[in-house]
């Protein structure tokens, strides 16, 4: 090479490249040793090691070679590692719906935004800094979520994100943009469409318009001289992946009638769908199983009827026979709704979890309701991990403790079926968060007295 300046530039670039590779390799691996690994299939292995680097699991099992550079926490044979929980569709850190929705001049022709038709929105660009959602849900065992904007009939995309750091503006990382499209039968009040039938009709018209725009865009780009340029429309364009079946629609529906409406739209337009919330989906469990429709189920059960509380049972019963019959049916209904997930699972429906509408403070109580309804520990682990990962189409990336998967898991003091179980560490995309165990709880952890934090290394 004769040109000295070019030679110099190339040399510098080469050095920089080598340095970058060296830096990448220099990211230390991390490991928990002497822990019990609980896999999503219900199996477990004790005295095991889980090793990860760059946010990915490199090994999980026994006889794992620990690299010389690994930062290791010895679990002391008493810590239990479970796959990180996943919220299949949530609204973590999403801005509230604007409340400034004054009457519009022509409610029959509102803007897309006012009508709640916003399928082009990308939630990872909307995350509110300083939200406590990531912190609160991480503490409960969650490490990843499908995040979607709040809204009405088409609020936006569902982005798959993983919890990461602890900085206010860097609590989550984008894994998959546009993993799904959020949809519901919910209208935006005061404008068209304002009713369920209006929403149904609008979905159809949107698909017709989207199809025409796509065709005419194709024609125009094929021969710009022969066709009039179609007006760009980001809303209609964002529906093209849905039309192609390349993007799953995460459709919220609770009762069988609404679920059937969603299925009707699916049949008309060939959507790929997941039912979200599905509070009374148990009523059509066999039909959903037969049609291979997965559900991201809510734990936002109705409140336990007041007459079922202990204090009500202890008080003098002044109810008439008719009133008692009414209450009896209410109790049966409440139990059926709490048993929704079990009924769906027993019927062969793939069921994951959605936290939309559920407060983090209520999560543990609702999990207890699930246990009371007969869900086993294995069912619960699957519900929050591998099942949800499969429902959202990323079972190869999340939801288990396997080589190559994202390093997202929770480390507990006891098996999670044990009421004494406490989260000791959360590992999300390789990032370790340590939760000190109060002394009374720590004392019950047997030989494990070596809990330590890696956070100081960050």
């Amino acid at each position, binding site marked *: 090479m004769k040109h000295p300046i070019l030679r110099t530039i190339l040399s510098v670039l080469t050095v920089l490249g080598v340095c970058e590779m060296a830096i990448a390799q220099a990211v230390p691996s991390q490991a928990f040793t002497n822990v019990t690994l609980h896999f999503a299939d219900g199996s477990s292995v004790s005295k095991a090691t889980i090793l990860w680097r760059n946010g990915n699991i490199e090994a999980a099992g026994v006889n794992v070679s620990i690299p010389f550079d690994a930062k290791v926490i010895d679990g002391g044979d008493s810590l239990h590692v479970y796959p990180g929980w996943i919220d299949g569709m949530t609204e973590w850190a999403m801005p509230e719906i604007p409340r400034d929705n004054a009457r519009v001049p022509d409610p*029959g022709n509102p803007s897309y935004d006012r009508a709640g038709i916003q399928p082009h929105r990308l939630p990872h660009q909307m995350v509110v800094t300083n939200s406590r959602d990531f912190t609160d849900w991480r503490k409960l065992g969650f490490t990843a979520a499908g995040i979607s904007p709040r809204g009405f009939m088409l609020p936006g995309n569902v982005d798959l994100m993983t919890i990461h750091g602890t900085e206010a503006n860097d609590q989550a990382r984008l894994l998959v943009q546009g993993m799904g499209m959020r949809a519901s039968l*919910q209208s935006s009040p*005061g404008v068209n469409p304002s*009713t369920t039938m209006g929403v149904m009709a609008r979905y159809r018209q949107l698909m017709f318009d989207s199809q025409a725009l796509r065709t005419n865009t194709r*024609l125009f780009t094929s021969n710009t001289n022969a066709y009039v340029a179609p007006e760009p429309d980001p809303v209609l364009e964002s529906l093209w992946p849905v039309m192609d079946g390349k993007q799953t629609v995460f459709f919220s529906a609770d009762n069988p009638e609404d679920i059937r409406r969603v299925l009707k739209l699916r049949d008309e337009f060939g959507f790929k769908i997941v039912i979200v919330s599905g509070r009374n989906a148990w009523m059509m469990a066999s039909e959903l199983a037969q049609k291979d429709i997965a559900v991201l189920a809510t734990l936002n059960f109705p409140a336990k009827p007041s007459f079922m509380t202990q204090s009500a049972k202890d008080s003098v019963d002044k109810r008439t026979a008719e009133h008692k*019959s009414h209450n009896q049916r209410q109790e049966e*209904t409440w139990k059926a709704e709490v048993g929704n997930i079990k009924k769906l699972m027993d019927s062969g429906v793939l069921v994951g979890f959605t936290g939309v509408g559920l407060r983090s403070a209520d999560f543990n109580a609702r999990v207890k309701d699930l246990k009371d309804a007969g869900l086993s520990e294995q069912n619960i682990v699957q519900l929050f991990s591998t099942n949800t990962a499969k429902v959202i189409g990323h079972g190869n990336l999340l939801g288990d403790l396997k080589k190559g998967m994202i390093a997202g898991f929770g480390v507990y003091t006891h098996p999670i079926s044990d009421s004494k179980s406490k989260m000791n560490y959360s590992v999300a995309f390789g990032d370790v968060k340590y939760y000190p165990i109060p002394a009374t709880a720590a004392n019950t952890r047997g030989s494990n007295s070596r809990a330590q934090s890696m956070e100081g290394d960050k």
Partner: protein
Amino acid sequence: MKFTSISLAILGFFMFCSNATAQKTGSVLIKNATIITVTSETHTESDMLVVNGKITQIGKNLSAPAGVQVLDASGKYVMPGIIDAHSHLAISGGLNEATNPVTAEVTMEDVINPNDVGMYRALAGGVTAIHMLHGSANVIGGQSETIKLRYGSSASDLVFKNAPRTIKFALGENPTRVHGQGNGIQPRTRMGVEQVIRETFDSARDYKRHRETYLKAKADFDKNPKGKSEPAMVARNLRLEVINDILDGNILVHCHSYRADEILMLMRVFNDYGIKNYTFQHILEGFKVAPEMAKNGAFASTFSDWWAYKFEVYYASAYNAAVMNSYGVNVSINSDSGELIRHLNHEAAKTMKYGNVSREDALKMITINPAKQMGIDNMTGSLEVGKDADFAIWSADPLSIYSICEKTFVDGVVYFDRDKDPDDMRLMINPNDTFSAADGLDSMTGRHFDACMQDVWYLFEESYLDYSSSFWHGGHFHLNRTER
């Protein structure tokens, strides 16, 4: 799960119904009853044989085929199931898409609520089919749905198969208040209402021409693309396609109306566009234009004696139905109410008191006449061999105030039986509602408001509307409002 006796009774009822639903039809021999056919003579001490949901014989001394249940109805009256041409029962998520003067694209078929206990209460009044109408906020509202009251069936199983498509129009104060007065857009006046209809019809014809031109060009291109350019796509327009179906005679119009001038106006418009077989709903001033209605073949579906709930309905008469009937207009008496539908036989009987309508014609007003208006008279609405076995057994003459509906059959299947009538027939239970609110009767104890305007009163509120926290739930719109 522990079941109570009531739960078991309800479960048993629906196992019975679901078995019947699986079969779709039932068979039964009714013996020794007074059989009111409505379209021909009344048979005393006669029998009616139903096989697989169809009436196969009416006469004396009929015998039941093997396996067919025999019901002794000595001293009882059998009449066709009552048909309500104007109902808002069994609708989910709002009955008024009141946001635009024209919303032909919406359809009741999408929002049938099979859990509405109101259907069971209507069955207890001898009703077997209803016409689920969109509200009357819009000049051209949504498409309606005709359903049979197969209570306990899914939404799709409630649908009256092969019933013609129908749609709701509305004239007068409702659309002018909602859109003109409420939003400052056309129509503000009755003149504007007419123009909305005409402009919509013309737009639909324009759309049809464009769309058909595109489809033809596309077909030509697909057949032989050589030397041709693929045509730019003209998108389907759901709203205008429905309007074209009206203009092509494939959808029957049912139009909310009151005043004589607007009734004449719509008949002129329909004559201009060649629309036939339409029904005026409510039509309180129909008695003023009965000859013109008869001349145009317009039908009328009215109340027996309800008026004065707004300005345009003060000029009214209990003789309205009788006058129109005397001019040969097809008249039906409707409910427009979850309460009134339970005793439409009484409403029909009022036409005998006010106007001396014959017993036969009074009964037609709640059976074959509404069936004609809904385009289902070839299948139901009278007791004739070959027709669907939709009927009710009454303890006495059904036009008597003392008569009680004892059993109601749809397609030969019993859906109401007074002898097996559990206290609680709700299909969906809210675990958290109160005992007093559970029956839903607090909202249907009478006609306190214009049912066709349900869900739209918020449009007239001047208070600040907190739309963001308002929502549909359980078939009701919950609007959170904060006074300024």
